[in-house]
């Protein structure tokens, strides 16, 4: 007998009103310092990051709600670096309360477990390695936080129809339910996603390619106690020997992703009765379930050669798209935003040189390139292209069951990391993330790196046991620079101080008395000085911020 498959009631998503902007009535072309287009995860993160820093921006979005096509399937896995950014922006607690925290992943071949990982092992952060949450919740929390901060001019139902670079800025035409208007921006940030019409309009090549691999997503709610771990099958017996992904999201909804034959009929495989039969095969008889969303997808990728084109910046999917394995898409967009936000804030204040904005491209383009390479390798492991590739994968899986070394070759996605940045003028030895370490101030009060970074837009200088004389001279030498100088341990130096902390020292790669670490506002380590002098500290900050050397 054929089963009937029920759908859960649709999510009720919030919507915000379209408010006719003053430009519509006045007809005047107003110039705004910063215009962000696109209220997805990257555009919202940037607007929120800027607002948190006290910087105003206009945010344009063609819709008036969160999510895409209602509560449809989008990103679900938020990585530690993204969560640390959300902590700094003040929405982490909401995400943690709503989402599913996890750190453990298992990979199966047939009935056998062939590989597992525990991301908690490498973490010293207050934030967990991952939280799963439907993307629309992240967007929802960001919008509410942005409205609470009150510095962003959020304009819903506002579609950008034309972008034109002008001598000292960008001119945009905006279409709204109440008519069209034109505005100008000193700087424009395109966060409109994979199909960016801004990018196309400016004639910028995205180097796109499309995979023939096909998947079907089933978001489904059922009552069967399964561990909150990331489970992947290279070749699941209940999916005709093809791949399957299984992840829990908020509200008891499981994301189950089935790899399909390349030549499948995408409409057929996503019919409720067809998807339901697959799920029944996996869950066994007697488990009740209801669908939240079903949809087929094929993935694609693209990567811009440059993320900055004069006064136009591309962030998130507008700049790069990778295959979904390892959650490197949305997380990368959120981290693009956090990379750019503080730079725009300091340049606007005249506390950093314009070349700092070039470093956005110099850091995030290679990060995206790395993510593209990593995800393409996973995609190729999961969808072998020739009999020889199938043979090699069979060998990997067979050996993995017997020998530890081969488990590392089983590749069902390498989870998103905070990418290292290459050496560059502002990062003489490259850049590396600093996790959100729990810290203690000298008087015993608890704090964290993110709490320290959430105040104002300054670099943090961690100076291990400085002398009083050097500390005084360093305060003088850096007085005009956006730097918060903190001593770690030591006495009598007169600086605000943190208690000595071996974990901090090991994590930032310093700790000897007199050593110094410069941490940027995006929690990246910009510099380590083995023996810091006041002049060297000032020089390190000026270098990191693309300021001319001190006279």
């Amino acid at each position, binding site marked *: 007998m054929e089963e009937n498959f029920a759908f859960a009631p649709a999510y009720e998503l919030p919507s915000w009103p379209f408010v006719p902007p003053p430009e519509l009535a006045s007809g005047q072309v107003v110039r705004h310092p910063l215009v962000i287009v696109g209220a997805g995860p990257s555009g919202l993160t940037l607007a929120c990051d800027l607002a948190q820093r006290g910087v105003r921006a206009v945010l344009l979005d063609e819709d008036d709600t969160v999510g895409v096509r209602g509560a449809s399937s989008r990103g679900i896995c938020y990585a530690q670096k993204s969560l640390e950014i959300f902590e700094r922006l003040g929405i982490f607690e909401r995400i943690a309360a709503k989402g599913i925290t996890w750190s453990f992943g298992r990979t199966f071949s047939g009935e056998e477990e062939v590989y597992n990982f525990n991301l908690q092992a490498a973490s010293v952060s207050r934030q967990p390695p991952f939280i799963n949450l439907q993307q629309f919740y992240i967007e929802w929390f960001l919008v509410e936080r942005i409205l609470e901060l009150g510095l962003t001019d959020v304009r819903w139902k506002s579609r950008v129809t034309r972008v034109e670079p002008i001598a000292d800025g960008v001119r945009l035409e905006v279409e709204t339910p109440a008519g069209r208007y034109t505005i100008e921006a000193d700087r424009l940030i395109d966060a409109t996603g994979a199909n960016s019409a801004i990018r196309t309009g400016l004639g910028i090549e995205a180097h796109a390619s499309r995979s023939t691999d096909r998947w079907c997503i089933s978001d489904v709610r059922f009552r069967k106690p399964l561990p909150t771990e990331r489970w992947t099958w290279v070749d699941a017996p209940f999916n005709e020997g093809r791949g399957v992904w299984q992840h829990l999201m908020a509200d008891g909804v499981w994301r189950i992703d089935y790899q399909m034959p390349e030549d499948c009929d995408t409409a057929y495989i996503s019919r409720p009765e067809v998807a339901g039969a697959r799920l029944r095969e996996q869950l066994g008889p007697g488990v009740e379930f209801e669908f939240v969303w079903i949809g087929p997808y094929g993935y694609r990728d693209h990567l811009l050669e440059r993320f900055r084109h004069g006064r136009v910046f591309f962030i998130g999917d507008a700049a790069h798209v990778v295959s979904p394995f390892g959650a490197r898409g949305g997380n990368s967009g959120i981290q693009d935003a956090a990379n750019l936000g503080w730079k725009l804030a300091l340049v606007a204040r005249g506390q950093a040189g314009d070349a700092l904005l070039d470093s956005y491209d110099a850091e995030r383009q290679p990060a995206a390139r790395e993510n593209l390479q990593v995800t393409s390798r996973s995609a190729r492991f999961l969808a072998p292209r020739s009999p020889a590739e199938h*043979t*090699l994968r069979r*060998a*990997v899986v*067979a*050996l993995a069951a017997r020998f530890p*070394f*081969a488990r590392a*070759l089983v590749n069902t996605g390498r989870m998103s990391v905070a990418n290292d940045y290459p050496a560059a003028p502002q990062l003489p030895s490259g850049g590396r993330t600093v996790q959100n370490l729990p810290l203690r101030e000298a008087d015993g009060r608890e704090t964290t790196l993110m709490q320290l970074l959430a105040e104002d837009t300054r670099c943090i200088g961690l100076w291990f046991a400085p002398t009083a004389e050097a500390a005084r001279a360093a305060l003088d030498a850096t007085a005009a620079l956006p730097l918060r100088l903190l001593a770690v341990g030591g006495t009598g130096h007169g600086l605000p101080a943190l208690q000595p902390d071996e974990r901090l020292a090991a994590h930032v790669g310093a700790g000897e008395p007199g050593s110094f670490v410069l941490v940027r506002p995006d929690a990246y380590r910009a510099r380590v000085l083995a023996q810091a002098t006041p002049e060297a500290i000032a020089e390190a900050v000026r270098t990191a911020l693309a300021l001319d050397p001190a006279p």
Partner: protein
Amino acid sequence: MNIELRIPDPDGFYAALLAAHEGRSEAQSADLNARLVLLLANQCADQAVLLACISAAAEEEHSTSPHPA
């Protein structure tokens, strides 16, 4: 990449390799070879040598192909 002989008993090794393939279909032999490559690669444990070996093996196929394209 070492190009001088390092296998103590070359004929014995070759005989053992042939023996392992005896009675196998072409597909089963291909599977065995793939497993062997991975096992040996892990013994080698030197990325540069591994890449040099992959290049050398790929070149050989092109230079000895009976049907040059």
